[in-house]
């Protein structure tokens, strides 16, 4: 896309334009590099000037993201990015506001801000880099770590049942929920595009490998050449997968989802726009452990009034009704009296 160059005439942006002069400080092999690359090459197609794009993050390896995007950005404090971004988005509807966060940042300390941003449907694109570990603090378990995980802080294994980020988001009334994989550039780009097009809060979980403290957490889908583990969600299409697309998903009468052969009937046809959240929730419960497959793509994408728009609407309505506020009149309102 294009913006005005210093010399006034249009220049076309490329991924390179989104790089900063800051040395990227992630460990060799970190999944964050792939996410950054995908984002930088996706950005130009967004059609938004760099100066109208903002990345807000909390603290964590993931949260270093803004330093490497040549847009406006804030590397804030742990867990608070959704709240800070809300203030920005609500006051500046002209901006494209993105939140880069980690599983600890978003789901541990920042859990409350996340679920409230989602229910309000503030116009934010929230990217959760899920490596199922605390990377920056060198390897303690996170709210997405599997039960019994042995880490620095849990020598005998963790005791906390993990969150399913997508289930949590859907339970928090999210209007857009998706999942992508760090190394799957095409898939991630498609998800980012859908998220950007969705007006309101978009929540994207990105499986991200942390080779240092939690290597191979997602190998089953990252290196899934034959597609035996990835269940691609394509809107309007039957949900099938497997080397030869032989497996499929079907809904049981108890609301849960079972595996069947693609040939059987009752195969679920994916409808991300379905207004009810029940099916998206059921899909979010389909995991590698429970079903031997992991859905990837857009789970839910529905329209609902956007907090920022509603607020702008009230301001407009009030001004419409009462006229542009007059300070003097305001101060002089109420009962007044004169002293000569």
């Amino acid at each position, binding site marked *: 896309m294009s913006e005005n160059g210093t010399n006034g005439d249009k220049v076309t942006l490329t991924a390179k334009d989104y790089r900063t002069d800051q040395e990227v400080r992630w460990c060799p092999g970190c999944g964050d590099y792939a996410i950054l690359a995908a984002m930088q090459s996706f950005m130009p197609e967004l059609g938004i000037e760099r100066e109208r*794009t903002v990345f807000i993050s909390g603290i964590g390896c993931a949260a270093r993201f803004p330093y490497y995007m040549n847009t406006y950005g804030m590397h804030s*404090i742990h867990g608070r990015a959704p709240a800070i971004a809300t203030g920005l988005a*609500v006051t500046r509807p002209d901006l494209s506001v993105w939140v880069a966060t980690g599983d600890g940042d978003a789901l541990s300390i920042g859990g409350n801000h996340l679920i409230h941003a989602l229910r309000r449907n503030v116009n934010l694109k929230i990217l959760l880099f899920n490596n199922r570990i605390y990377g920056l603090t060198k390897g303690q378990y996170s709210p997405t770590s599997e039960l019994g995980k042995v880490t620095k802080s849990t020598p005998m294994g963790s005791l906390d049942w993990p969150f399913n980020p997508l289930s949590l988001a859907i339970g928090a009334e999210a209007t857009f929920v998706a999942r992508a994989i760090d190394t799957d550039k095409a898939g991630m780009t498609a998800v980012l595009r859908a998220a950007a097009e969705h007006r309101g809060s978009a929540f994207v979980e990105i499986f991200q490998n942390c080779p240092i403290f939690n290597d191979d957490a997602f190998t089953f889908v990252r290196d899934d050449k034959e597609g035996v583990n990835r269940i691609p969600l394509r809107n309007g299409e039957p949900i099938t997968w497997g080397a030869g697309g032989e497996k499929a998903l079907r809904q049981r009468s108890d609301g849960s989802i079972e595996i069947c052969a693609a040939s059987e009937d009752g195969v679920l046809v994916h409808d991300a726009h379905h207004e009810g959240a029940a099916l998206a929730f059921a899909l979010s419960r389909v995991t590698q452990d429970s079903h031997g497959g992991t859905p990837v793509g857009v789970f839910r994408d529905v329209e609902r009034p956007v907090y920022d728009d509603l607020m702008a609407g009230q301001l407009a309505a009030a001004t419409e009704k009462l006229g542009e506020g007059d300070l003097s009149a*305001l*101060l002089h309102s109420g009962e007044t009296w004169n002293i000569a």
Partner: protein
Amino acid sequence: MAKPVEQLSQVIVRFAGDSGDGMQLTGSQFTSETALLGNDISTLPDFPAEIRAPAGSLPGVSGFQLHFADFDILTPGDAPNVLVAMNPAALKTNIRDLQKGGTLIVNSDAFNERNLQKAGYAANPLEDDSLAEFQVHSVPLTSLTVGALKGIEGVTPREAERSKNMFALGLMSWLYGRPIEPSIEFLQTKFAKRPEIAEANVKALQAGNAFGETTETFAVTYEVKPAKMAPGLYRNITGNQALSLGLVAASRLSKLPLFLGAYPITPASAILEELAGYKNFGVRTFQAEDEIAAAGAAVGAAFGGSLGVTTSAGPGIVLKAETIGLAIMLELPLVICDIQRAGPSTGMPTKPEQGDLLMVLFGRNSESPVPVVAARSPSDCFDAAIEACRIALKYRTPVYLLSDAYLANGSEPWLLPEMDALPDISTRFATEPNADGEFLPYLRDEKTLARPWAVPGTPGLEHRIGGLEKADRTGNISYDPDNHDLMTRLRAQKVAGIATDIPELEVDDPDGDAHVLVLGWGGTYGPIAAACRRVRNGGRKVAHAQLRHLNPFPRNTGEVLRRYDKVLVPEMNLGQLLKLVRAEFLVDAVGYNRVSGLPLRAAEVADAIEALVDQ
């Protein structure tokens, strides 16, 4: 025959009754009537703690005190000389404050078994001599009201009874020669939708008024002449209203949209509620999920170029600390309003205190300097709010604005400012690179040390900021030892430098030869000034200075303190300003400290001053 009129210079009235008795309304109506007569006034409502307690119970008592006079007054008064008690509980909880020989008007109808017992009275105080030292007027307000309203279409007995507060208002208005017309108008508009209720209330009001005239119980009426006040247009206003208006004004004066991030909390909620009504002023109010989010959203809004404000009270302010620390690193403008209440922890939510001074100064990890401004009276909250915004915007820094539960809910006449007398606090965004072609977000203004404010949407100034230490000028992450030492000192100098940009500390020392200086800050202005008056009337000399800027201090503060042999620092805490001035100026100041959840009383402060003067 009209009854004799006695001249009084000042009166302190307190209306007390059950939460359901409408005492706040009665009080504020009496206040309006009084204001219109040109008296100076000062009011103080006293709400029951938080939620409604059972009818007739002690915790359920609600009060409203009004001080009016023919001279300029400074406080709602220590002890009322007139108490209107609508039930035994109200009598029980308030009688201890009534002046000896003071006037007591009670609703005798309410003094039945049940109510007496709820109030913990073994015997009916109206029937023993326990009230001997007061002029007791025992009036059956309820039955008189019900009687007066007989025959009004569509008014239930319950509703009729509810009008008894208007009967009381009518009676009091008569007693002190207040015109009841404004209240009649008020009632007619308030109950426009239910004319019969309006009629009932008006009738009750008039009946009360007539009752005074006709009954024997009152021999005289009183008159309080208008006060000599600066000429101009006045309005009665509470601290929270004034603070809200100040923020709206600051938004206009800075030409920046106002964004308020807040989470409800006593006694700050009213600011959120007030500002929510100014949407046509471009005011955005965001009721956040908690105080951290409220502060965070304000920071986000500030990053985007709004005037970011967040309001709360102690338990919420303390939660914002980490976020304020971020704002200090980001060097973005932000105003944090702390409506102080009694603590620690949840404490006594509806009661005032000055306990948060050290917290706002030091309650963040590491060296994180912030300017602090404190309002001195309800109407002063307007100017204090503008001043806090001015400093925040000019120096790109979070600023704490301190008020308290007493200023927040108390009211006084406010001489409305001339529009063009209001300061221009507009600021400029960065629009151009500032270092030959490059943009350095931490390249400071030489004079103010403020950094440029480049808001998203500005082409060519894209930059990233964050909470990690940053290199001087470039703002890039830096762990360089010398840079950190430098940046730490620069942040401190920026705030310290504001001293050159604020007025000097003014001293009220009529003859300039007092030996004792009373140094106060914020909301204690009224009681301290009133105390000094008493002391002077008693023939002693005393000087008074009230700090509005707590950080940095006015540049002449040390010089002022050293001018006096003795310095007294009265505070509604255990000596927080005292610690600061002793540390900074090494003066052996002493404190007068009372932490009772009540505003300081002029009398107690006066005693403390006199003791020191006579020492």
